[in-house]
């Protein structure tokens, strides 16, 4: 029962995370910034609109946001929160978890290619490169944790956290880099840029509007929540729901701080960052092995 309550928390509170991130960035820049609930207002506005579709596109374009949202909601059912098990949990569910994000990414990429625009093509090609490198890092990190806790299910792994060992810290850093890469945050991608040479995620969804765009924004918020819940679960033991919720908001603040203090990396550097994160996860794995 508790597990479904957690899903409800995620569905309701996910857009709040983006609001906290934007507020943190605004405070660093000396502004007041958007209201914390801005994304909710945006979603409501978008859901009330009609839609405009490009003549070049087809049903693939219309299917992209829907498939992406469905995939990330399914991933939500696998991630445990605050130490209690997820509704869907079985040996090897970490593989399904990673590949559901792959499904979301595949549909986003082909929806981008459907527009026949070079902007979307550019974003799509960069996105698949980063994803091809980020997935092994995620698997390495989860493998280290699986070996440490002896469990092959996310619920089992996050139920046996002992954060006092260096292994968990190394894995947490690797997972943070994966979170930044998968959610298109600085230093991998700048969510505020609108220059086509520098966009990755933004440009892939450039032609969507109306309810489709609402699904995309909401799906992105949920993806941030899901990966954030994984990271918080690795760092925080115990079964305190309130503490975990506060930790999620703290994670959003941390992401905001990172975004405000760092610049976006050159595109050629991002593979090095991801491989560096992979090195940390590999080190964690080696430490667990002995």
């Amino acid at each position, binding site marked *: 029962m508790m597990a479904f309550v957690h899903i409800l928390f995620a569905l309701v509170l996910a857009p709040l995370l983006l609001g906290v991130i934007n507020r943190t960035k605004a405070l660093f820049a000396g502004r007041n910034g958007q209201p914390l609930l801005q994304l909710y207002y945006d979603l409501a506005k978008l859901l009330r*609109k*009609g*839609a*405009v*579709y*490009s*003549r*070049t596109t*087809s049903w693939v374009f219309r*299917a992209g946001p*829907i498939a992406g949202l*469905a*995939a990330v909601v*399914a991933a939500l059912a696998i991630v445990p929160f605050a130490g209690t098990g997820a509704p*869907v949990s*079985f*040996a*090897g569910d970490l593989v*399904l978890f990673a*590949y*559901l994000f*792959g*499904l979301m990414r595949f549909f986003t*990429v*082909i929806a981008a*290619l*459907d*527009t*026949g*625009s*070079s902007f*979307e*093509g*550019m974003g*799509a*090609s960069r996105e*698949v*490169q980063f*994803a*091809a*490198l*980020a*997935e*092994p890092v995620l*698997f*390495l990190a989860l*493998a280290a944790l*699986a*070996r440490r806790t*002896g*469990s*092959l299910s996310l619920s089992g792994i996050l139920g046996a956290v002992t954060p006092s060992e260096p292994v968990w810290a190394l894995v947490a850093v690797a997972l943070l880099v994966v979170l930044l890469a998968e959610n298109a945050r600085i230093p991998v991608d700048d969510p505020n840029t609108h220059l086509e040479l520098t966009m990755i995620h933004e440009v892939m969804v450039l032609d969507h509007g*109306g*309810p*489709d765009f609402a*699904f995309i924004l909401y799906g992105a918020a949920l993806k941030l929540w899901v990966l954030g819940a994984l990271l918080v679960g690795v760092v925080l033991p115990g079964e305190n729901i309130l503490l975990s919720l506060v930790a999620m908001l703290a994670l959003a603040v941390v992401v905001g701080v990172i975004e405000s203090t760092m610049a976006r990396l050159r*595109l050629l550097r991002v*593979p090095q960052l991801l491989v560096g994160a992979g090195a940390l996860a590999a080190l964690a*794995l080696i430490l667990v*092995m002995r």
Partner: protein
Amino acid sequence: MNLLLAAVAILVAGGVVALWRDRGGPVAAVAGCVVGLVGAGRVLWTGATVSLRLPWNVPFGSFYVEADALSAFFLLPIFGLSALAAIYGGEYLAPWRGKKSLGAAWFFFNLLVASMAMVVLARNGVLFLVAWEVMALASFFLVTFEDERDDVRAAGWTYLVATHLGTAFLLAMFILLGRENGSLDFNRFTAGKAGLVFVLALIGFGTKAGFWPLHVWLPEAHPAAPSHVSALMSGVMIKTGIYGLLRVLTLLGPPPAWWGWTLIGVGLVSALVGIVFALAQRDLKRLLAYSSVENIGIITLGIGIGLLGMSTGLPVLAALGFAGALLHVVNHALFKGLLFLGAGAVLHATGTRDIEHLGGLLKKMPATAVTFLVGAIAISGLPPLNGFISEFLIYLGAFKGGVSASAAIAVPLLAVITGLALIGGLAAACFAKAFGVVFLGEPRSDHAAHAHEAGPAMRGPMLLLASGCAAIGLLSPLTLGVLTPVVSVLTPADVLWEAARPLTIISGAGIGVLVLIGVVALVRRRLLAGRSVGETVTWDCGYAAPTARMQYTGSSFAQPLTELFRPLLGTRKKFTPLAGYFPAPTTLTTDTPDVSRERVYRPVFGLVEAGLSRLRWLQHGNVQLYVLYIALTLLVLLVWKLS
């Protein structure tokens, strides 16, 4: 057994009739395959092994055929995909009617299917090699169907040489086994000199299956063949190599650990090299051929994990590894067959295989596009389709070993997991490129702009294959019933039921995702009902005259990844830089030849040719001297043996 032999007989007879009368080839193929499917299904259903043994007056040979669970399992894709390819081929070959002998083409097609079935059923070394050779020759004649083209002829020769090199190793292997055991019947083989036999089998069957670096014929032969033949070759024929390897493994007894490690290494390298090269291709069928190399690598990886489990006493690892590999055999037949048939439909409609000249085909060929998309999602291993299921079984086996086994075994297994994750990501990128550049966007040339949808005989098999992919993905627990008896031929498989319990949840999750998609789609329809839904052009940043050539090309899409793997690919770039200050025309061409072909085979064959051309003086054309050679040799042999 009667049904299976009847199927082979129908196929051969139908082929002869087609050659003689130039009609009835496809019908006989489909009929034979259906009969064969029933027979194979019966063997799997009843779980009983049927065999037949007849004497044959060839030395060491006997007509010994047997259908156990392993053979029957491989017969399923052989007969299934062949039937669908025959239906497809009937319409695909129609443009050549009158210009080429279609009767011969159907004769060789039926002969190919019959010989593949015999390879899988044979239990005698001589019978096996005869069937193997017939398979090679029949496919050679099918590959060189369009032999008026230079590239097709070159591809045919490459294929013939490669397959015979592999057969040479198989011949050596069977001679070795025969010398050890005094007979070439499989049931008389014992495990003497197992290591050498394993290596010979690895090279011999690996050439047919397409292990790296023995794969060089695949990217040449599969694009050159007509598309229904490519589908058959890529989907089924290379799997006979896998079957041969598995059959030899059943004969050799308990495996030492290095066999498992060797197969894991070969599998990982083949998979990685295959998919990286696939990313760099612009010929659609060559891309699919390299992707076959990748999937064979994944299958071999699964077999390696299974062998590792057997040698280290971890039955769960063994069962899961073999189950994943075997399921991937069937899955790959389904989705690679589907993708090749789709590529054939594209070629049939547009006349080109070059993806940089295609685009926007989804609007002209909607059914082909949908089935191609299903194939692309399945081959990328994404849930909820069948590719994910077989890769999941391999992942699960590797994880179970990685978590609970000793460090010496666990570290490489976890490296395997990382490798599989990388390969999965690259495969998704490659097929997003293939589907996106060919079917989406705007047409990049006139060929693509004037495409038409394929006819019903071509669409039907593709739809069937796509439904097969979806069925296995969404109903995966049912596959365990078929897999368990097959895996138990190789290793005790009772643990499979318990270990593969997650499949139920996975298929449930797959159905859940589809339901969610339906719900969200309904929500959107409700939201947009009654509101304005407009149409406009794609956002073009204010350019006055966007053209279809401004779209991202396939090479551009793959460029970040091909740049990352540049040392592996060895891409040659020819670029004439601009001189002066003003814009001017220039050209840039890139070319990615196969690395092992350029760096390994070409120098070696060049050396061999240089050495052998010194002996050319022997071939002077004088008949009397040739007869003198024969007489001298006869004299020398007589003196030697009789003294």
